């Protein structure tokens, strides 16, 4: 058992008369406050619901997460405010009405004293409590941090390399959640589900064993793990607001003679219903595109090689990057119609300035423009971010922004980009193990670098770890 699984909670308030257990206990949660509801700030004697006790524990499997439980003398609901100081800054969702309550405190760094207090909906507030999070396992790569991200949210980041890990970083680049993983394929993507209850892992098999693909839902306390075998998923997935999972799935040539040796493939988009009972094909390259003509142009076994997918909830659209074709396609989700192609072989736009992309991975569709992680492939010895404004009536495309690392970096595969509301941009130089937040002028505000031997794949930026 990790010795840090349960740590002593202490009340930093020296005048408080709360009952505080000060010794660690290897087998049970630590009672930190037996009379929280009777302190001055809880409205004792006012007839309010009394908090009978508070328990807190650092989780054994993820030592940055604290579980706080409390009981009340009568039915109530409440939440916990917490943070690195007594001014808190974070809070949990409100519990259901009842007498037994339990919440997870998410977003804490390791080896940090966490302050917290229970707040009932009727105004009763416990005194401040503290508990110290544990020491990170050494399977997580050390991160070298510069600056602080102006983005106030969290980064969900798959890590591959010497060890595989799912991780969530805060705005200072500190680990606040993790899962050390056995190698189960190619961890292309991890996503916090919209309800905040699970982290979803997209495990693609390697290119020779795509039939081993699967998706896994892991609860943030590591106690629940749901697997769904999903052969031939590849590269990327996204989650719709209702929990539907949409994935790129490799599909062989449906007209191929099985004895001809033809092993050509393309891609389709398949949605998995939230109850995991129904798969629905939304789009299939073999139906939507002239694959024979494209195969003659680009060669390769996977003619489309889809490598990134985004869903536009407002307009019910999918956007998919097709690496082998060097193109992005816009797809109507309701009809499966391919509305247009941009860049590469399927390009329907006229580039007005700048120079075209040369194989891209992730992209971010904005209002009237798209920013791409442009790998550059072998035509250049550098990768870049490039933003194109586009006009769907004039069919023009204008380069409005570009960012290159200094010195240049070439990312042969992977790469991610996300534009924040404040105009700054997140770039993930995947195979260089580096994440940067840069201003429109290219100033680096924040940078995370892994130690040698680890890369980031595709990241997700989330505003709230509870899915609110």
């Amino acid at each position, binding site marked *: 058992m*990790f*010795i*840090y699984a349960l740590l002593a909670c202490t009340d930093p308030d020296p005048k408080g008369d709360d009952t505080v257990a000060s010794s*660690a206990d290897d087998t049970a949660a630590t009672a930190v406050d037996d009379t929280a509801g009777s302190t001055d700030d809880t409205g004792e004697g006012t007839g309010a619901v009394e908090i009978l006790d508070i328990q807190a524990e650092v989780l054994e499997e993820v030592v940055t997460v604290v579980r706080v439980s409390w009981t009340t003398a009568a039915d109530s609901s409440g939440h916990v405010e917490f943070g690195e100081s007594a001014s808190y800054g974070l809070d949990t969702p409100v519990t259901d009405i009842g007498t037994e309550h339990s919440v997870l405190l998410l977003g804490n760094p390791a080896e940090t004293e966490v302050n917290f207090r229970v707040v009932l909906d009727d105004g009763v507030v416990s005194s401040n409590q503290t508990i110290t999070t*544990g*020491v*990170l*396992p*050494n*399977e997580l790569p*050390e991160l*070298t941090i510069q600056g602080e991200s102006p983005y106030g949210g969290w980064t969900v980041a798959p890590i*591959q*390399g*010497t*060890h595989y890990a799912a991780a969530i970083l805060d705005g200072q680049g500190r680990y606040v959640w993790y899962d050390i993983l056995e190698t189960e*394929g*190619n961890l292309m993507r991890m996503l916090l589900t919209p309800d905040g209850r699970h982290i979803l892992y997209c495990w*693609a*098999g*390697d*290119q*020779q*064993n795509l039939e081993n693909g699967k998706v896994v839902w892991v609860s943030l306390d590591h106690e629940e793990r749901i697997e769904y075998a999903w052969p031939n998923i590849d*590269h990327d997935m996204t989650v719709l607001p209702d929990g539907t999972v949409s994935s790129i799935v490799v599909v062989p040539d449906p007209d191929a003679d099985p004895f001809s040796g033809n092993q050509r493939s393309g891609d389709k988009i398949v949605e998995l219903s939230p109850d995991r009972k129904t798969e629905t094909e939304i789009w299939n390259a073999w139906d939507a595109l002239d694959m024979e003509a494209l195969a003659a142009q680009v060669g390769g076994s996977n003619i489309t090689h889809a490598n990134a997918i985004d869903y536009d909830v407002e307009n019910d659209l999918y956007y998919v990057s097709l690496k082998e074709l060097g193109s992005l396609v816009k797809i109507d989700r309701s009809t499966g119609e391919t509305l247009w192609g941009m860049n590469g072989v399927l390009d329907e736009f006229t580039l007005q300035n700048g120079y075209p992309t040369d194989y891209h991975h992730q992209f971010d569709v904005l209002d009237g423009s798209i920013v791409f992680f442009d790998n550059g*492939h*072998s035509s250049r*010895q550098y990768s870049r971010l490039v933003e194109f404004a586009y006009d769907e009536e004039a069919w023009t495309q204008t380069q409005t922004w570009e960012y290159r690392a200094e*010195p*240049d*970096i*070439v*990312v*042969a*595969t*992977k790469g991610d980009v996300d534009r924040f509301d404040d105009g700054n941009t997140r770039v993930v*130089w995947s*195979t*260089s*193990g*580096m994440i940067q937040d840069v201003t429109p002028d290219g100033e680096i505000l924040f940078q995370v*670098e*892994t*130690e*040698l*031997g*680890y*890369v980031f794949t595709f990241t997700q930026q989330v505003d709230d770890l509870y899915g609110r």
Partner: protein
Amino acid sequence: MVASLLLACTGAGGGGGSDDPDDTGSVAVDEAVVPGVILLSDDDNYAYSGALQAPSFPIAELSDPVIDFSGLTEDLQCHDLDPVGDIDNAELIVFQHLSEDEVALGLEEDSLLQSDVGIYLSQQPGDATSVKLSDFTLFGTDADIETFFTETSGTWLVVLTTGEEIGLGARMLLFLDPLAGETSETAVVDDGCSVLDFSADLTSLDPVTVVPSGPWELDWGELTTTGQGQDFVYSDADGVMVGFYEGLSPADLEGQFLDLELVATELWTMDIPAGTSASLSGLEGFTGFTRTDGTWIFALRCSTCPNPAPLFLTVLEPLGG
């Protein structure tokens, strides 16, 4: 990642560790020899340095070279190597903006970051004794890497390893040097023994006195520097080794540093959780520092560090010995 060059780590055993690094009542054995907590200090630690001379092979740019290791029968540590059975993985790392000398120095000092790397690929040769450039992938994803193989593309490092954990278990290093005027498309590696030049100082450290019988709680919470001169990161320490070397002095062991696990008369190891102390009672079969006809070694190891040289290593001197 000097690599994986050094000791073959063979972690075993169960847990250990202390609950509280702030335990009161700790007694430094050097000052008052009683069973209990042994506080380790930087002065107790050994010093290690290593220099790499990895071979560099001129290769025709934009070719698809073959790396042939069929004749590689000794690794970096001059240990016997079976090119069929021992090479499980080949890693390809391209440093866009560093020279071969800078890469070698970075490996020696463990100072390289992944951001120094532009391309990072691997492949498993299976029973083959050669690998081809175009077969390297990023965890299974094809990268068309041969199209990047140009004279101006940077420094191309290939690491042959035992085991498939990236960055660990290196048995051989080599550089590929893509050149416009070159015609060779093959790199034949057959000499691992001359790649690593190392020195280990086990005689300048302050030996740590221990009582023959336990319990022993080793506390390294005050260490600031590893034996390689790097900052000591507590979470890196995940293994403990205690060894006894009959008839050998610390000076004798310096010359056999790469073989410390092989030449030990008796050896105990265990994995430890993250923390700053560990109890030697977790060492299976270890009964005490009863022998005085040789040298006792205690080491803290890091199984996830590219350089498997111990983070900390000291000589233990049993009281009354």
